[in-house]
């Protein structure tokens, strides 16, 4: 019966109740918005890092990762790649020859990391062929083609068909140079990658290094990121002479970044709930103080204090129960819409986001149980907010209360 009384009490002052309900709905909606887009941005960064840099699993010579020394290569990399591809859970494999050196053009020179790849294998993992904006992605027949970021080309002052000279230390320790021609340009919205890395054909790079069939890195993309640990363990057991690492081991920053995002997401929730609680306390306090006479009477005719406390708490919780679904509905609709269309920030923040390695079109994402957690948060907030007003209500003395006008 207290439920029915509480419910009816709320609607005795519709305007006041609606203010709180709408505030709660707005709060919930806002939290869904902020959380969804924060997670979306985080995903964008992680996906980009996995595709372009660390993949799900990578295999190297055990000494390679210390200094990225070109002498620590993997032999017979093509055979290895085939064997790795046969493992359950592996979707794509790409062997890469890596060289750190200098690129020089008629106008200038820069440090550059050159990645020698097998075009199709690499495209499957990094999808860089899809990011083509000019020219072609390492076309057949052009052995000394180089595929670089548009940003890098701008910095170097080169265009399609410009000639660039790569200088680096080969496996025998000699400084060697090779000329390439810019055959294609890509745009990834990840400045750090674009300005530091360019792609050439692996067989050509190996030839220049003087060793055939080698690679420095075998990149592996799995069907599902969650399989990384198990597949890596299997690969390590199968190839004990190599160093097998998951993306988490390779780049602990990714894990840290993800956990920072999730921490900030919870902080958002707490801050918004705290903002709401003041309004709730105020409103319910007013609701109690307005009804001093009525409460006095109820107590005088025998309603015990526990029931009165519960009634006030229930009234508050019910306001939350009405407001939360509204907020969640609004939020869910918005997230659905943006998941299809994306939030396009390219007019305002393309370069700024590219500095962080985040794509300019953001797709929000929710984690399973997010809505439930949010509902629970509102419930707790409402309960906590109702404590002070409810305490005030039960501390009224019926005799004095009845005398109030």
């Amino acid at each position, binding site marked *: 019966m207290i439920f029915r009384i509480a419910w009816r009490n709320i609607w005795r002052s519709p305007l*006041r109740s609606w203010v709180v309900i709408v505030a709660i709905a*707005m709060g919930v909606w806002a939290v869904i918005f902020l959380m969804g887009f924060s997670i979306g941005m985080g995903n964008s960064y992680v996906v980009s890092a996995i595709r372009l840099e660390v993949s799900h699993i990578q295999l190297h010579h055990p000494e390679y990762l210390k200094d990225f020394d070109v002498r620590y290569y993997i032999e017979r990399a093509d055979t290895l790649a085939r064997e790795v591809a046969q493992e359950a859970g592996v979707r794509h494999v790409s062997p890469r020859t890596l060289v*750190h050196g200098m690129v020089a053009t008629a*106008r*200038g020179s820069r440090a550059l990391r050159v990645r020698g790849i097998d075009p199709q294998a690499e495209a499957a993992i990094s999808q860089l062929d899809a990011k083509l904006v000019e020219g072609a992605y390492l076309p057949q027949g052009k052995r000394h083609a180089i595929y670089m970021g548009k940003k890098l080309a701008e910095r170097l002052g080169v265009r399609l068909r410009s000639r660039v000279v790569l200088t680096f230390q080969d496996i025998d320790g000699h400084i060697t140079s090779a000329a390439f021609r810019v055959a294609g340009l890509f745009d990834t919205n990840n400045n750090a990658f674009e300005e530091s890395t360019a792609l050439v054909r692996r067989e050509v790079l190996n030839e220049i290094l003087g060793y055939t069939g080698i690679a420095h890195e075998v990149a592996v993309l799995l069907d599902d990121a969650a399989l990384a640990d198990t597949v890596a363990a299997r690969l390590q057991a199968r190839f004990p002479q190599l160093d097998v690492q998951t993306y988490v081991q390779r780049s602990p920053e990714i894990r840290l970044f993800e956990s920072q995002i999730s921490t900030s997401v919870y902080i958002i929730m707490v801050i918004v709930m705290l903002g*709401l609680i003041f309004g709730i306390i105020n409103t319910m306090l007013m609701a109690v103080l307005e009804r001093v006479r009525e409460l006095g009477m109820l107590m005088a005719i025998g309603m015990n204090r526990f029931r009165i406390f519960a009634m006030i708490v229930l009234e508050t919780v019910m306001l939350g129960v009405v407001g939360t679904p509204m907020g969640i509905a609004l939020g869910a609709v918005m997230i659905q819409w943006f998941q299809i269309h994306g939030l396009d920030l390219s007019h305002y923040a393309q370069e*700024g986001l590219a*500095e962080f390695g985040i794509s300019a079109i953001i797709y929000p994402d929710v984690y399973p149980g997010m809505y439930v957690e949010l509902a629970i948060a509102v419930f707790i907030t409402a309960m906590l907010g109702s404590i002070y007003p409810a305490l005030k209500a039960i501390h009224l003395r019926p005799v004095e209360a009845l005398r109030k006008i």
Partner: protein
Amino acid sequence: METLIVLAWRNIWRNKRRTLITAASIFFAVLLSTLMVSIQKGAWDRMEENVVNYYFGYVQIHAKGYWQDRSLDLTFAAVDSLLQLPQWVSGVAVAVPRIESFALAAHADNTTGVMVVGIDPVREHEMTRLRERMVAGTYFDHVREPALLLADGVAQRLNATVGDTVVLLSQGYHGVNAAGKYAVKGLVHFASPDLNRQMVYLPLAVARYFYGADSLLTSIALKVTDKDKVPQVLAQLRQQLDTTRYEVMDWHEMMPELVEARAVDTAGNYLMLLILYLIVSFGIFGTILMMTAERTYEFGVLLAIGMKRIQLSVEVWLEILFIALLGTLAGFVASFPVVYYFHRHPIDFSSSKEIAETYAQFGFEPIFPAAFEPFVFLSQALVVLCITTLLALYPFWKIARLDPVKAMRH
């Protein structure tokens, strides 16, 4: 008007609890906003300082078109009038000449790409305090010394220390081969992780010889004593220099991506604060609603005895304002010591290597000071002022429609 102010002040204390709770919600919002904005501003300001003061400078002069290409071919002659710039441009303390370009540095079996900068040791130190940031070895003694200074990140990559020989290879002026062997005279530390991974210094004359670029410079960086004078300096230089031969750029023009990155981060923060204020506004609106509803009788009486509607509306607006100001002031007073503390003792994550590396990826030190500036505090007050004025429209509207007779029957 004075009466209205006194009335308003007394009225808000008629219901102490409600006033205090409403003020508390504003106090919370102001405290949080001030803290968040201060820390975010502090972190970005520091990042800018680390990069600007310790290397780029706020203003640079180049040959026209140089910044777009960074090509050694776009160099200019080091004329005296440019080197004596501080004498004829006010606000500039030092003109720092440099010649810089990329090179491959090698030591034993290690190679890495670096930025080789030819510097005037005395002037460079005046702007960037380079000598003070040495962590090993000694600074250049004279301009022709065939030695180099390495940033300690570079030294790590090359596995080199003071006394080792490093080979530099590059492409010089007009495409000549640039090759040289130099002893490491000292190591320098940069707070900016990006700079720490790349910088190698040579004395100006030695660098010019290395690049085959006699008496040429790629840039002159200017030390501007007061950040706010930068626009003036820019304007004066653009007027007095031949802009077909030279370009004058400030920090924002040289690194637009960083400026935008900062804007994005700031915008995200502000969005969250906006939402917080929105919710707090609902709370205030609830209070206003209650205030107006419970005093309908009183308003009716006041209007009946001759108070003008506009006066009553202003009085109610003042009440809301006072409550808001109470909360805002309390918020400031509480935030002052906290912001000041983090201003002097920045939040420091450098003990955690992982966190430091994560931030290093984005070019940040893992140290976050809070910016202690009036702007941050005052802008909060302004926001609160605007919100309350907007919300006061409701009682304004209500009072305008009030019928005293009906109201007195309430």
